[in-house]
């Protein structure tokens, strides 16, 4: 047998006991062949193979046994070059790193082989392993043994990592004891540590030099499972004199200078504090402490200032060094606590040494740029002390320079600081806003709204095939409602202009929406793939509907896919109910694309931005249908009605002129009423709804699919209504678009359902909820009760089931089942841009639905937050006066827990002042309700409204009007937290608008004047 054959024999049939002497006896010339064989055996054996473990029972099994794995590792250790050793796959087997008993003696084999082979790359390899995974660090005991045997040079970083891992290793060792809760385990560990002088004198101190996991290394001791970590052990080693106290204290401070991880810095801070340094010890380390003031993290600076604060006025304290660093500190916006501590000290310094006044005044003026009110106030107090001193502390030039700088910063000052420094604000110091501010004006809501139906907002149709092709890419990637509608329109009117190889060109998009498996497939293979493609997945929505249409297009409309998309609610999915109308609309388009060349356009694709259908365009499209002998699809017409800008007078007049050409008398009557300048409720007909019953076959299929959940492709298309059958529903849609809030008894025959004869006007209220849970382990607080407010949108009970899906304004009357709330919300998040695009005239139904689903509590998750943000964003568009749900939505947005929502809501507020949509009294009312029950905290609103300050007189006036209604709704006896900030904001806008304080507000101010926190702000307003 050759050496390599012997080696292979050992690996396959023997154990480490035979391998170790074999490797020790290897000659130089044998190293490379054995190395090659090691690698080839690894390739062969290190894999999982499906093996029949019992007759008929298969299991994937690792071909490599544990012993073989160890042997191949040892072979690598003995024969690998540096290159192979640095490969990621060459790592230390877990149990070799001293983690407990080693009956097979592998750890000894490890040392023996290393002694024989003495690889040059050992240190480099161990460092690499540890850097990749700190838990894989070799034990300190092993490291020391390797060092003692001359196999490894002392590597400070590596030894640090190992030391910082020792307690975790002690924790593992507990498993080798009978009882894992070992009494006096901490003392046992301390005993081990004290016995090792090299550890104490050399390696333990390295913990202060390198980033390690010392802050999380721990074990437990005793029955009461007392935590043992380095923070408990090191002070004991210091106390027993095994570590030098002075050195440890200084090293803690030096470590705090470093850019270590925040938890590690906190650990060094805690260690310093755990040693309870005396004032003398701290003063002796003032240089190290002052140097910490240059640290980027506030936690270090706050700690340093806290340690120094009692020495400021002591003669040994180096004031000059502190002031040097203070120069840089006062420009930092991230410091609050630290700066407050600094200014407390600076006040003392001024009293002790008035010659510092010039330096201190410069520091204080710079600190006025800090956004924190309390920092500003401290700086202001110091400035006041300097400038107001009986005996002048500054020269005349310094006074001028200081007051000029203060004046420059006037607009940055909080009301409290401005009051404090009032005497020193020169006339030029008035806020720049006031310099250019035009005269105050009064905000009045604008009641009329006319949609912009002009060339400026007209949407250009898709020009040619190439535009349609690349628009498909945009649709696949982004799915924005505007581009989707353009695409749908283009798909129709360019039918007949597709190039011969259009399906080929669509293939990149098909691959993207379905599966990358389609790459490199032939046309036949792809056609076959889509022929049996399942549209019945869990998450189905508009994206899937569009994908189905795209696939139909690719297939040349040989197969109609849209209606195969399953939009029924399932266990983990609740598609938005409005999608069924969209499905019917797209299915109709798909059907016409199959049969007509070119296809008639959809009635409902917007003609003008954002989602308006011009009345004349709608009528013209209907005339085109008439000319082609086609009947409009009810779903399409329903959507067209909700999108038609019937209140655009000029275009509606033009449309009315076209109406006589329409030969469908019922439709003509509907449009005549709908496009009238002032449609009269009394002019509505009393159409009776058709009674629809499901065909027996369909009933059977649906029942069958319920019984067999895995039955795919069973959803047959809903039989669509004819136009004549759908007319009663369409009348309801038209009526509710034009007259959303009126009682329309004429429609009572259509259906007895909210949103038809009666408008759907949900009520909303708050309900306090509590939840109590027990925590027996916490003896101090065995029972915890959480209380919160819930916003409930309520509708009187309605019969289950919508009479017809075409009743678009009744779609959301029925609340989703509580069990599917989350899935409905998820669907809403995905579909909201489309849903809002359906109702440009009157989106209230969507607003109520989303308020009900996403604003139930103040603690919103990401999905709910995105829903609110998208909805509030829609309030930016021009439109009619904000309705009740729109105002409520704005109020919820302005006080939302997510800053991003509040920012969008602020924009909506400002835009609504510009467009006159805002109803200040209603907004004040809603905000007052939200605040007074504690649904949201006051601070959120005060912070948001502060950003609307001094933008324009009109905004100031509108905000003032909102606050005038809001303030009297807040509790007067026990003011809410941060009411002061709201009052300061009110005082600010009130002074700008010169509006008198209303009696209701004044009455509340009188009451608030009794509160210490509000006295100043309230009396200031009353006396103004």
């Amino acid at each position, binding site marked *: 047998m050759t050496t390599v054959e012997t080696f292979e024999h050992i690996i396959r049939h023997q154990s480490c006991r035979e391998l170790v002497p074999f490797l020790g006896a290897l000659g130089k010339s044998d190293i490379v062949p054995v190395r090659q064989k090691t690698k080839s055996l690894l390739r062969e054996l290190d894999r999982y193979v499906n093996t029949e473990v019992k007759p008929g029972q298969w299991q994937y099994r690792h071909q490599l046994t544990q012993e073989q794995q160890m042997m191949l590792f040892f072979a690598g250790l003995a024969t690998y070059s540096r290159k192979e050793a640095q490969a990621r796959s060459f790592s230390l087997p877990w149990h070799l790193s001293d983690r407990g008993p080693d009956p097979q003696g592998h750890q000894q084999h490890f040392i023996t082989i290393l002694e024989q082979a003495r690889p040059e790359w050992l240190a480099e390899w161990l460092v690499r392993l540890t850097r990749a995974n700190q838990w894989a660090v070799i034990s300190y005991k092993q490291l020391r043994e390797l060092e003692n045997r001359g196999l490894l040079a002392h590597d400070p970083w590596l030894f640090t990592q190992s030391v910082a891992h020792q307690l975790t290793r002690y924790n593992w060792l507990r498993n080798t004891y009978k009882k894992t809760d070992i009494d006096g385990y901490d003392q046992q560990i301390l005993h081990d540590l004290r016995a090792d002088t090299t550890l104490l004198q050399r390696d333990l101190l390295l913990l202060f030099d390198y980033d390690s996991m010392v802050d999380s290394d721990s074990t437990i001791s005793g029955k009461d499972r007392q935590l043992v970590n380095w923070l408990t052990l090191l002070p004991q080693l210091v106390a027993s004199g095994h570590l030098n106290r002075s050195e440890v204290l200084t090293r803690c401070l030096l470590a705090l*200078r*470093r*850019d270590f991880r925040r938890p590690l810095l906190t650990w060094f801070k805690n260690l310093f504090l755990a040693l309870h340094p005396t004032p003398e010890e701290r003063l002796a380390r003032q240089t190290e402490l002052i*140097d910490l*003031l*240059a*640290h*980027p993290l506030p936690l270090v600076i706050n700690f340093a200032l806290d340690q120094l604060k009692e020495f400021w006025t002591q003669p040994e304290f180096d004031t000059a*060094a502190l002031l*040097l*660093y203070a*120069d*840089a500190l006062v*420009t*930092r*916006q*991230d410091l609050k606590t630290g700066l407050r501590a600094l200014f407390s000290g600076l006040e003392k310094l001024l009293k002790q040494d008035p010659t510092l006044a010039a330096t201190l005044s410069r520091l204080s003026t*710079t600190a006025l*740029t800090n*956004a924190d009110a309390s920092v500003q106030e401290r700086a202001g107090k110091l400035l006041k002390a300097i400038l107001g001193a009986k005996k002048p502390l500054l020269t005349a030039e310094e006074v001028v320079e200081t007051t000029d700088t203060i004046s*420059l*910063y006037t*607009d*940055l000052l909080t009301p409290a600081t401005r009051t404090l420094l009032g005497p020193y604000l020169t006339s030029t110091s008035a*806020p*720049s*806003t006031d310099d*250019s*501010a035009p005269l105050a004006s009064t905000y009045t809501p604008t009641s009329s709204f006319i949609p912009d139906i002009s060339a400026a907002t007209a949407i250009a149709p898709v020009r040619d095939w*190439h535009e349609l*092709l*690349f628009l498909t*890419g*945009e649709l*696949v*990637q982004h799915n924005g409602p505007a581009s989707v509608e353009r695409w749908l329109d283009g798909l129709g009117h360019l039918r007949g202009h597709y190039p011969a190889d259009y399906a*080929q*060109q669509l*293939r*990149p*998009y098909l*691959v*993207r929406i379905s599966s*990358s498996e*389609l*790459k*490199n497939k032939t046309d036949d293979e792809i056609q076959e793939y889509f022929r049996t493609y399942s549209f019945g997945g869990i998450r189905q929505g508009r994206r899937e509907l569009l994908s189905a249409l795209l696939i139909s297009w690719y297939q040349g409309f040989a197969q109609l896919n849209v209606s195969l998309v399953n939009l029924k609610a399932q266990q983990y999915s609740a598609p938005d109910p409005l999608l069924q109308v969209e499905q019917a609309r797209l299915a109709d388009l798909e059907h016409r694309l199959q049969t007509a060349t070119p296809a008639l356009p959809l009635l409902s694709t917007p003609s003008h931005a954002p989602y308006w259908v011009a009345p004349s365009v709608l009528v013209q499209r209907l005339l085109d249908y008439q000319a082609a002998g086609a009947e409009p699809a009810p779903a399409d017409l329903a959507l067209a009605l909700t999108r038609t800008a019937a209140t655009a007078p000029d275009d509606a007049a033009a449309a009315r002129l076209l109406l006589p050409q329409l030969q469908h008398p019922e439709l003509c009557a509907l449009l005549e009423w709908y496009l009238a300048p002032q449609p009269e409720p009394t002019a509505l007909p009393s159409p009776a709804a058709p009674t629809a019953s499901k065909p027996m076959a369909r009933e059977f299929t649906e029942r069958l699919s319920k019984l067999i959940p895995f039955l795919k492709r069973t959803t047959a298309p809903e039989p669509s209504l004819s136009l004549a059958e759908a007319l009663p529903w369409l009348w309801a849609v038209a009526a509710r678009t034009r007259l959303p809030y009126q009682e329309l008894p004429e429609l009572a025959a259509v259906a007895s359902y909210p949103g038809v004869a009666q408008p759907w006007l949900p009520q909303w209220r708050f309900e306090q909820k509590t939840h109590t849970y027990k925590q027996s382990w916490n003896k101090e607080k065995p029972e915890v009760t959480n209380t919160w407010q819930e916003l409930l949108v309520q509708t009187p009970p309605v019969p289950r089931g919508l009479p017809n899906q075409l009743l678009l304004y009744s779609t959301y009357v029925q609340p989703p089942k509580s069990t599917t709330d989350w899935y409905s919300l998820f669907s809403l998040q995905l579909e909201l841009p489309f849903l809002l695009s359906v109702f440009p005239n009157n989106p209230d139904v969507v607003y109520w639905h989303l308020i009900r689903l996403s604003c139930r509590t103040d603690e919103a998750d990401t999905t709910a937050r995105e829903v609110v943000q998208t909805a509030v*964003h829609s309030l*930016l568009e021009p439109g009619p006066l904000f309705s009740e749900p729109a105002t409520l939505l704005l109020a919820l947005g302005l006080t939302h827990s997510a*800053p*991003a929502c509040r*920012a*969008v809501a602020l*924009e909506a507020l400002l*835009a609504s002042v510009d467009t006159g949509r805002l109803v200040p009294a209603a907004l004040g009312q809603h905000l007052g309700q939200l605040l007074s029950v504690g649904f949201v905290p006051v601070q959120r609103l005060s912070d948001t409204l502060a*950003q609307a300050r*001094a*933008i*324009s007189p009109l905004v100031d006036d509108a905000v003032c009007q909102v606050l005038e209604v809001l303030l009297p709704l807040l509790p007067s006896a026990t003011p809410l937290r941060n009411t002061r900030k709201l009052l300061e904001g009110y005082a600010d806008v009130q002074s700008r608008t010169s509006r008198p304080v209303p009696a209701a507000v004044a009455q509340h101010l009188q009451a608030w004047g009794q509160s210490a926190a509000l006295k100043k702000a309230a009396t200031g307003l009353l006396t103004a």
Partner: protein
Amino acid sequence: MSDFAYAYTRPSALEARPEGNALLLSAFAEDAIESGTSCFFWGRLRNSWLAARGLSTLAKVVASRFVPQSAALRDPIVTAGAGLLRFEAFSSCNGVYARLDLGPDALDGEFLSSGTTNVDFNEPMVNALARISRTEPVLLSVGEKEVVLERAEGRVTERKVALPERWIKGLTAVQAYLALMEEKLRMTRVQAVQLVQGLPAGSAKTDVFLVLRGPRPSFSPVATAGAVRVGGAHRLRLLEGLLPLCEALRVYATPDGQASAFVLELGGGQQFVLALSADVWRGFSGEGNQLDALMEELPTEWIAGANNLFRGNETFNPTLFALENGLDPATVDKLCASLSAMGLLGFDLAENHYFYRRLPFKTQRILSLNPRLKNARALLAAADGVQLIGVGEGGRTEARVRGTGVWHTVLVGGAQPPQCTCTWFSEHQGQRGPCKHILAAQMQFV
């Protein structure tokens, strides 16, 4: 990592000397071995306190990262030339570019050599910058004039650092963006301070738009006319310490809103530039905004000639340069793109001109640092990677380009921007440079 690494022979330090502090920046220039340069500047800082604040902010930028990523190089590169010292750096995520310009008014000393070098920014030196007082004279040395410093415990501290490739790629993209930028807003010091105070709390996950509302700068989540798009606006907090010290702040942005820059006029010949990429997750190194200009392979001798010329001039305005030399502006753009693709050019917004960085002239970097360009050339090299379908109105050319398992339809030429059916184009709509399919079609047919 890049094709070169460098090492410092001693650490940078702020040393106390009898005549005042000395800020000794240890340097390693890639081409210094050839030129024999060891020191670039030696002299005093006129306003050392302000310069120290600028350098601290620069150190803060290099230490920052806004996406989970390991820390990269922390040492800025310094270009000495044309009477200025320019300290440039990127954040570790490469989405923030910062530059401190110390002009003639800020320096009182001698430029011993023009050149570009990395300087060592170690932790103790950066911490020591906070100790510089307002009135204290400070000597600045970029590189070693003479080896006079005692080294700790007699050891030579040598720190090897590999320059990340993305820095050079980032330098290419940044100068291209800066050259396109227009001034959008100008703010006073107070407004500059309010800028950071008005930042939305936490990390900005969506774009915000900077606009002046009344006298106050505001960050709005909604785009309005005149507003500047600022992606990842929380990155502006890097400027917090410097804003209260500036005399004025100017805000620049590219017309397409893909990058913005904030120029702080610090006074005394000092200026600090902070440029932000379009989004937090978008490093400048991945932008590909120069690919159009790099598409056409210019003769190497042209690039070498331009390199020699610009190396001598140190700064130039591309329009004036084209006029003076009777060159087509498009050719000058291509020359600039080729040189900046090697990291050789930077752009000064205030002066509206390019400045030259003395880095090694390695034309192979153009391809190696632009994989999309390299892949496009590979498509062209393949037998049937790019096929012409037809030429339409106005020279609009339709081509089929081989993709991964599919063929992409590509339109190039004509007045409209190029288009492709690939995922990259659908996702970015051409805003992050052309895809390899468009590049290949353009190289073949336009």
